[in-house]
């Protein structure tokens, strides 16, 4: 989805800076220095607005992607975002390297018991194998009733962690799925 946000001009940015610096009385009468304009590396790129994935300030970023190959060309602060107004910290400004990073995981990996290496696997295999193991572990440890005869429908043999790096829709489905399985060892970053 394209944000519709285009390049901010010089005037607007410096204007907002001045306003915040309590010197707006001085006014800024700047015009774009269009003489001898060079082609920007982001010229013609698709612009998509999204939210930085690092901390909880929730800064807006604009991702510039190539219209020919879909590659991320630049990620910068969204000047229209009321919290960060185009600014970012060093981490947010480094997001480009998360998009263009040869260390990112590109396939499912599996490590067999006792093995010292990863094996590449496909999704179908992995999901099936994981589901089988979850079913087995749940069955082995599932408690319908506790010692007092109270219906508890829980398993203490499965545990789940994580969520703060995921979005709300993902967190919601994680909670829904985990509780339907009877998982009670359910924790994440917020605890620690």
């Amino acid at each position, binding site marked *: 989805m394209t944000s519709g946000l285009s390049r901010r001009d010089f005037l607007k940015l410096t204007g907002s800076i001045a306003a915040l610096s309590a010197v707006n009385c001085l006014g800024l009468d700047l015009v774009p220095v269009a003489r001898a304009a060079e082609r920007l590396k982001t010229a013609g790129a698709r612009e998509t607005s999204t939210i930085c994935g690092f901390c909880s300030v*929730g800064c807006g970023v604009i991702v510039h992607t190539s219209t020919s190959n879909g*590659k991320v060309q630049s990620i910068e602060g969204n000047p229209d975002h009321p919290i960060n107004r185009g600014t970012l910290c060093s981490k947010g400004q480094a997001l480009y390297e998360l998009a263009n990073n040869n260390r990112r995981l590109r*396939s499912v990996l599996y490590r067999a018991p006792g093995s010292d290496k990863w094996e590449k696997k496909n999704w179908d295999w992995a999901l099936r194998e994981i589901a089988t193991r979850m079913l087995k572990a749940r069955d082995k440890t599932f408690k319908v009733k506790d010692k007092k005869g109270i219906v508890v429908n829980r398993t203490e043999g499965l545990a789940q962690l994580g969520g703060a790096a995921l979005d709300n829709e993902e967190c919601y489905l*994680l909670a829904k799925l985990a509780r339907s399985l009877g998982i009670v060892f359910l924790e994440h970053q917020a605890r620690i």
Partner: protein
Amino acid sequence: MTNSWIDLKNADVILVCGANPAENHPVSFKWITAAKDKGAKLIVVDPRFTRTAAKADTFARIRPGTDAAFFGGLINYIITNKLYHEEYIKNYTNASYLVNPGFSFKDGVFSGYDEDLKSYDYDTWTYQLQLNGEVSKDTDFNNPNCVLELMRDHYSRYTADRVSKICGMSEDSFKKIADAFCRTGKPDRSGTILYAMGLTQHTTGTQNVRAAGMVQLLLGNIGIAGGGLNALRGAANVQGSTDFGLLFNLLPGYLNMPLASKHETFSRYKDAEVAKSGYAVNKTKWFVSLLKAWWGEYATEENDFLYEFLPKLGDGYDKSGYSWVPLFEAMYADKINGLLCWGQNPVLSGPNANMTAAALTKLDWLVVSDLFETETSVFWKRPGMKPEDVRTEVFLLPAAASFEKEGSVTNSARLIQWMNKAADPPGEARPDLWIIDSLFKALKDAYSQEATAKFSEPLLKLNWDYGDDEPDPHLVAKEINGFTVTDKTQIINFTKLSDDGSTMCGNWIYSGFYPGDKKADNRAAQTDTSRDPDKLGLYPEWAYSWPLNRRIIYNRCSANAEGVPYDKRRMLVSWDGAKWVNNDVPDFSIKDVAGAIVTPDKTAKSPFIMLPEGQARFFIPDGLIKDGPLTEHYEPVESPSNNLLSGQQNNPLVKIWQSDMDKMVEPGSSKYPYIGFTCRVAEHWQTGSISRNLPWLAEMMPEMFIEISPELAARHGIENGNKVKVISPRGEVTGVAIVTNRIKPFELSPNAPEAVSMPDHYGFVGYVTGGDEDKDYSANQVTSNVYDPNTGMPEYKAFLVDIRKVG
């Protein structure tokens, strides 16, 4: 946060205690600086001189683990000098309530303590009731049993002199800060407190935060623009993940998970959990709508909406519940078969990291979904471990980054914002939503084929249809918002939820963020900044803030009983004599069910709508906070000092684990004489699983370092840049010594302890690691498993260590 990032600009005084926003939330300094431009004062209280401290008007060093004493001192200062906002505490808090005369406090312990069980009986932690059942009050604050007088007495022990010795802060500094901050008790002055893990990561974490909150209530700083008690939360969506109940004791929307001991049936759950007064009387509606969202048509009034399908919590591992530490203690004791780990790296982020890694070897299998190879996913090849000895199977699933998928995230200020997809994830990486949806489908398949599967109904009957192949995040978002069952109409907000099964809602507090069927109805995706009433920075049409798009919660308190704003320049809600005129969404009813206007007097005594009392609590009744109805300072479990305030050295409810990997240091140990604590830097993120793989960040902070004072360095012959080792009985960590005047011993505290500061970002895989392939790579190899009895938060911020030069 009660308030917001932008709202920081409205403050007159900003007190940062237990947070480091210049490093951990750098963009917040746009607004802190904006406040300073208008003359605001920035006060920073921290064990070390941070980048935030570098910008402070006033900085004071505080010994780790003594924040409750510092805030207790402020409470005493406020009450003794009568700097509290009297009208505010009379109307908006329980300061005037009379407390059970049987309640008492002696030598660090509240009434009802059982030393053998290490627990409290809460019988005396109650209000005095009149015959009609209402709470007895003394609004003149004369009765010695009224809350304000109990506080006057309780906190009188927190004298400036004593606080100064406990905190290792000069009396002068303390008084200067007290004077500067407590001036905000005036109605037209706003003071905000910013905190983060510096307050929470203690065995007294709840005490610390509560005491800070009490300061803010006394000064009338809650519910106003430029005020509040603001938790600067960590991860991009840690607020959201908490809101969605990814904690053992919670369901989405802060509904409690049922307990086997109290909630065996639906009616018992309702009896125990649904409030008798306040807005939470509606809890059944939220709970039933959640059960409907989960089990759809199968959940009916006749079957109690399938309440039985929800797991019921037992006592947990070693009678300690199911939170983080008990989870890993159970795993280490070989009680857990498999672990699913979604975008988290516990091998580095958990306390006692050597134990965490050892615990993972006891698993049959481990599933990790992440962007990079993390220390958790390759724990089997961690330095010193032999892969052939580790039988755990590991599945590592490649996930998509935030800008490679669509969905909503909630920032620290409860602001729900929509992320748009900008690029495809690399290779076969997939959004977690797809992975979870596919896993559900695989599980359903497996359970359908397995005739003997135990109690498979809750999974097989789960209401789950978000698309055949690619799950649609908008469908999930709409379910979270809620809709009517019969015609699937999105509901406007949670006031339309019902308890008869006619509505479904995945998380009631989010209800209102997606009130219509079209994508244009998604209010998280709103991007209009043209409206900014009174230039307060509320921006009501930018994204959506839960609950009900309210930007500053408890905002009824910004106006007096008659509805007149305490500060016109910072008006949030205002009664003009005939109607309410508001800049923010009011946190109270302005119209009744019939649509008639509600006059200010009706809400003048109940601005805290979620509490049954309607008024904020200085005194917390009934053991809702387990370790005390008022706050009290206790020393960290590992401390170089005796408690100068009472004979009770540590939080009386603290649990010491007994496994062979849970070794603790006795107070005042000569073998481990220094105070260790963990910290963070601007250039890295959490366990570094992302940031240590981004070369531009890695080049700025390439390896593990340890900050110490020149005095401590001299004592051990350490020079700046030397390799050093920090040692605790749990483990060791190696790093480069930064010898700096930013770290100083706490000379005023007993034994003048030295401090050792360690970032917790480093590990053993990635573009950069802890350094030199040493097996001691993480600060959490030296931290311990003791934690706050209320929150389960480990004590990362105060423990005892030794240090020595390597080689």
